[in-house]
């Protein structure tokens, strides 16, 4: 038990790194390809350790990202908790899929994320500025997932987080 408590901070370190990647300045011409780093990292931890990282963690991370992006407090918290729920609901299924099949699920979740953001935009501001370009970043998410997964699994084994 003691050992487990020791390494729990690694999860938060990866989340903070994800946050930094997420808010890092990004060239505007490649901006549409910007992956949702934080979402990928969060999904990994939920799939790997559903008893440690769950809806509450996702909610907190959402609040933090809301603060950074200047969106209304709660929008990303809503989206992240919902995504966490979707993943938790079927985490055993996701775990047993091949990596490329997981990529498709990530692609779907990422589109979900963008559409929810758009939905909030429409409800709160009553403006529609949809571009089909949001799907590029979801596509990048799907491709990146394999690397994120392998890297984080390495980290998890290294620190024996359980």
């Amino acid at each position, binding site marked *: 038990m003691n050992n487990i408590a020791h390494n729990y901070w690694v999860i938060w370190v990866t989340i903070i790194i994800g*946050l*930094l990647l*997420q*808010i*890092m*300045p*990004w060239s*505007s011409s490649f*901006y*549409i390809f*910007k992956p949702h780093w934080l979402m990928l990292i969060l999904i990994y931890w939920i799939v790997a350790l559903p*008893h*440690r*990282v*769950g*809806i*509450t*963690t*996702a*909610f907190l991370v*959402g*609040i*933090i990202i809301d*603060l*950074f*992006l*200047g*969106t*209304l*407090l*709660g*929008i990303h*918290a*809503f989206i992240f*908790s*919902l995504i*966490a*729920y979707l993943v*938790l*609901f079927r985490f055993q299924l996701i775990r047993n899929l091949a990596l490329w099949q997981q990529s498709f699920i990530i692609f779907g979740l990422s589109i979900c994320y963008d559409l929810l*953001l*758009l939905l909030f*935009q429409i409800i*709160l*501001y009553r*403006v529609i*500025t949809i*571009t089909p*370009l*949001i799907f590029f970043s979801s596509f990048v998410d799907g491709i990146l997932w394999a690397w994120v997964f392998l890297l984080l699994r390495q980290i998890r084994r290294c620190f024996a987080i359980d």
Partner: protein
Amino acid sequence: MKLIFSKSTPLGLRIFLALSFAISLIICDINYQPFTVIRYYLDTAVSPLYFVSNSPLSAFNTLNNLSKTQQELLNENKTLRKQLQMQESDLIRLNALKKENNELRTLLGSPLRHDEYKKVAQVLLADTNPYAYQVTLDKGSREGVFVKQPVVDEKGVVGQIYSTAYNTSRAILICDSQHAIPVQVLRNGLTMVAVGNGCNNDLLLDFLPNNVDIQVGDLLVTSGLGGRFPQGYPVATVSSVKVDEHDSTPIITAAPIADLKRLHYLLLLWNETNKPQVIAPDQETNTNE
């Protein structure tokens, strides 16, 4: 997580609680004024991370500066000096013209124009959210930045301050669909409002008379109406003039002059009345980075 919920708490209940809490937060953030104070402190708490996330870029810039050869620097210095000379020669008569303008205004009984105080701010974060166009600046309420303060760059108007924290602030760009700015046509003084339409599109002009005299290429400057933006800063050039086929109202779009996608250094403006104490008179003249 374990502190609040035991393992046996059903998933459905947890998600229900999380979502309802998120929605109530959103509603609070929209409706309740005290929330802006809470946000101020939360923003201040998280702001050091902006500087961390910006550090690779600034390190890269420093490296870039270090790797410049002396010859390059000399050349750069020479061109800058030439530029400065040209601009100073343009400015020679400015003081005389300013005085003359103020005298004429006194004769007409219209309010005098005052000098503005400027301060350079660096963009820490151009927003990643494709639905809101905001930038985070490295100056906050400590430096006297206030909400609704105009933000310009060397070409034209960029936007206005939207929220502040202790040492960072957030500006909304003129192309955000939430933003509107009162403008006038420089050529004939017609006033109208330029409304943002997303940064990939041009601004839309609103509150137009039906037979408006406006041409493609007309320069739009701030009209100073509403008192938020000082008069005369360039905002946009008219890019297309069309007429709606149904009710023959003109549809006019204008392209922003400032390059809103590549913002790096911006200027914050103060006027005479709300100028902060921290700006010394010599500081606002030597603000070139």
